[in-house]
């Protein structure tokens, strides 16, 4: 887990986003912190709805005073641009609510979504040192540059991308057939129209 990796170096408390109910306790913990690191997966090109709900609640409740905010977003596609929007949200949230935006880390390639260590990442040779550098910025409380994660992740070339598309689709189709589904069938919901 990426946050645990940072916590081993920096110390601090870890809070999990409640999937139901209010955010009072979590927002209170954010207010009391000197540094906040928000880490989450990328759903449809940004953070999941529940994390946006937390930001909306935190903005409504207010009470922030210069807390340093860092962000981490991790998605499946092996590109930075696909996931980067999540960090934009955190930056606007910080700027509008009295926090200090210190930058973030975008991680494509997905392996960490299932709890795998960063050492399993497809670009581990550049990503692991870049994430260590990001961690150093967090520990020192300094601004972290976007170039850190941008330079660590080169998108696969066209040929490799075509091979990936074929291989990944083959795996998806195989799995769907095992469940007895036709991958080319029209959406089931079209039969449910009024």
């Amino acid at each position, binding site marked *: 887990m990426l946050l645990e990796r940072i916590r081993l170096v920096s110390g601090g408390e870890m809070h999990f986003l409640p999937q139901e109910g209010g955010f009072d306790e979590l927002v209170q913990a954010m207010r009391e912190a000197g540094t906040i690191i928000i880490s989450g997966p990328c759903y449809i090109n940004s953070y999941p709805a*529940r994390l946006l709900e937390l930001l909306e609640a935190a903005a409504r409740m207010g009470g922030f005073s210069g807390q340093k905010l860092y962000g981490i977003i991790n998605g499946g596609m092996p590109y930075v641009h696909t996931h980067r929007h999540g960090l934009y949200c955190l930056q606007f949230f910080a700027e509008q609510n009295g926090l200090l935006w210190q930058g973030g880390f975008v991680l494509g390639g997905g392996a960490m979504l299932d709890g795998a260590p960063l050492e399993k990442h497809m670009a581990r040779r550049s990503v692991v040192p870049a994430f260590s550098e990001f961690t150093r910025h967090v520990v020192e409380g300094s601004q972290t540059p976007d170039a850190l994660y941008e330079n660590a992740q080169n998108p696969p070339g066209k040929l490799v991308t075509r091979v990936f598309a074929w291989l990944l689709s083959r795996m998806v189709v195989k799995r769907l057939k095992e469940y007895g589904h036709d991958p080319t069938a029209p959406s089931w919901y079209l039969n449910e129209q009024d």
Partner: protein
Amino acid sequence: MTVIISDDSRAAWGRQLEEELVQMGVRTQQFAADRLRIRPCIACSSCSGRTYGRCVLPDDMQHLYPHIAGCRALVLVSPLLFGSVSHHIKKVMDRMSALGDPRYHYSDGELVKGMRGQGMRYYMLGIGDGPDEAQRRAFCFLHEENRRIMNVEGRAFVLDSRFQQAELTRIAEEIGRG
């Protein structure tokens, strides 16, 4: 059919856009996401596996799915918050994975996915209180990324919350024209 899904918690923007489209003769349905009981996606992956194409969460999203699956154009209308849509609209976006094609495709040198078997156009309208250029760009960036990965056509619009009716009319005309 054009389907509008809006967060009308601040004002009835979705309803206003629907009226504009209907006046132009565009068949339109509007749903206010903030008044529906829609749970966040729990990333169970059932919709791309065991229950392919079907979401297992039993809530009001089940009512929206057939409308989205069969629509000609989908318009998401949201308050512009932190350069993004509100959580009400993001819940709908996250849950739309169930309508996506789980296979991977190659487009412009990158991996993309797609929507299943429909030529849907996809629009987003963000309405903010004096949104600055950076927030406008971020909102349009989110739409562009959605559009690319869904492999569909469409565009994003941003309005100030004190917009003139004529501005909404122009947006409706563009959506109506396709």
